[in-house]
């Protein structure tokens, strides 16, 4: 059998595919962060908690209302997005005139509150969430057994990412958005309601996090801490990609998922630090990030 550095190529394909699955989550989350950052200029520390909220919404819909995965996929992002809108209107919007770091501190505090409340309510141990019946089982690809659900996650997140990119970079609405990023006062003068656009953008970014949470629920357990550590990795992803472009966030997310997957084969001990190491290297060589522009 052909091998690369002692690892059979067949097994390598399997690992790459798995890396792509993790990459889907990185991409979805860093995309949401990038969208929010683009317009609001804040780093949304609550993002991890909102990802967790998405998963919990799915869990509660199932256990309390009997609504399954597909409903959750629809309802959770909207519901969590609405809470995001409330947060933006009630709290964040009062901070825009201050140093951006206050936004970071505020969202950090909110994350603590949300995670603490859920830990009190549900404990730290995870709650199980079943794979939707349509997607159980899997395909034997020859080199690996790919569960159908994981395949769905890759496809769905790719579609969502590309749709978001298309909307922002290629539609008129996206045009306003990008213009408002550059010069809000001017766009306001053209009769666009910029504050409302900011609110909706935050809601949209948060909704993306919730969507990722619902997709993650059947794979990982639904637990209050599920977003807390993930978000730090996603921050590193964002630093590596640079926040200049939407496409950058998507490509970096998937790419780093792949690299992490490879690390798990060749040197598993480093698999949870590899992204941080790459971040350090990128900072040395290209401080603005791979796709970023130095402002």
């Amino acid at each position, binding site marked *: 059998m052909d091998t690369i550095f002692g690892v059979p190529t067949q097994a390598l394909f399997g690992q790459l595919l798995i890396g792509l699955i993790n990459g889907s989550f990185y991409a979805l989350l860093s995309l949401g962060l990038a969208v929010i950052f683009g317009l609001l200029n804040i780093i949304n520390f609550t993002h991890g908690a909102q990802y967790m909220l998405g998963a919990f919404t799915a869990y509660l819909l199932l256990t309390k209302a009997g609504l399954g995965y597909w409903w959750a996929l629809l309802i959770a992002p909207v519901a969590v997005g609405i809470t995001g809108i409330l947060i933006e209107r009630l709290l964040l919007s*009062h*901070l825009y005139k201050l140093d951006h770091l*206050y936004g*970071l501190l505020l969202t950090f*505090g909110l*994350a*603590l509150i949300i995670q*603490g409340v859920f830990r009190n309510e549900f404990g730290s141990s995870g709650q199980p969430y079943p794979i939707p019946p349509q997607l159980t089982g899997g395909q034997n690809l020859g080199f690996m057994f790919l569960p159908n659900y994981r395949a769905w996650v890759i496809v769905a997140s790719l579609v969502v990412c590309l749709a978001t990119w298309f909307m922002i970079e290629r539609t008129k609405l996206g045009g306003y958005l990008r213009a408002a990023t550059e010069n809000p006062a001017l766009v306001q003068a053209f009769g666009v309601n910029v504050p409302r656009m900011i609110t909706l953008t935050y809601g949209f970014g948060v909704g993306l996090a919730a969507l990722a949470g619902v997709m993650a629920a059947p794979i990982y357990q639904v637990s209050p801490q599920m977003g807390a550590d993930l978000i730090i990795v996603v921050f590193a992803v964002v630093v590596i990609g640079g926040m200049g472009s939407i496409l950058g966030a998507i490509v970096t997310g998937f790419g780093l998922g792949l690299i992490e997957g490879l690390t798990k084969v060749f040197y598993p001990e480093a698999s949870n630090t590899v992204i941080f190491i790459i*971040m350090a290297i990128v*900072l040395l060589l290209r401080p603005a990030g791979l796709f970023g522009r130095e402002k």
Partner: protein
Amino acid sequence: MAAVLHPGTAAASAGETRSLRWAFAGMVALVALAPLAVYPVFAMKVMCFALFACAFNLLIGFGGLLSFGHAMFFGGGAYLAAHSAKVWGFTPELAVLFATACTALLALATGLLAIRRQGIYFAMITLALAQMVYFFSLQAPFTGGEDGIQAVPRGKLFGVVDLANNYAMYAFVAVVFLGGFLLIWRIVHSPFGQVLKAIRENEPRAVSLGYDTDRYKLVAFVLSGTISGLAGGTKALVFQLASLTDVHWSMSGEVVLMTLVGGLGTLFGPVVGAAVIVTMQNYLAQLGAWVTVVQGAIFVVCVMAFRRGIVGELGALFRAKKPV
């Protein structure tokens, strides 16, 4: 960049200096009398965290840089002091010095990376670097993984004074804390501190005046990290324990909270903030996860309505009464 982040700027007018001196005298008296009234281990904990928060404040309050990774210095210092005291048999003062020196190097290495970006990026980068240190501490053999380094001997100070006695230990911690505090005071009011404040207020102007701002920021970062390491090393001796809690990101969050509650950019704010938060944790410990919720709520309240912190608000009140 809007420079509204530093409401409690410590202007060094003569009157202020005088009141700062009085406040310091009051603090010394409080430190001296505290063991009579409260459990000494608790008072030592407050002092360790107060020093940590002061070190952190040096960076954000006077340098305008928000680090979200200071746990790496605090925890790193704790591990190094614990290891050198337990395994190599260092005396306590050597163990703490060794920890402080090593954290200085760590701060230099991470600082060189982190100061390449500003503002929010700086916060995220320090957070990510600290997470790396966290994973290192989890996996490295000498840190004992989940168990941490346990049963660290407090040892004999200079080979003579036995620190196993809580009051002897208290005196040692008090000296470290007050010494560290005076050092920070000195730094803030030195020409270096003035340049730092200038950079914080308006970096481009500082650059145009010919200052190498990156170097100033790096020095501030290293000083802040080093003193955090000192605080962590001392804490490890007090509790005879260095564990993952000390390097976890929630520790970085806690020190931000302490400083914010007490007052960013005020000399005494972090001390007050640390006392408030540690006391709160102590009395609310039974509530388990609610502590996190309460801390989060304090964060939100501070950011929304109380940005000057306790000492900052008091200072403002004081100044309002006495029109200059």
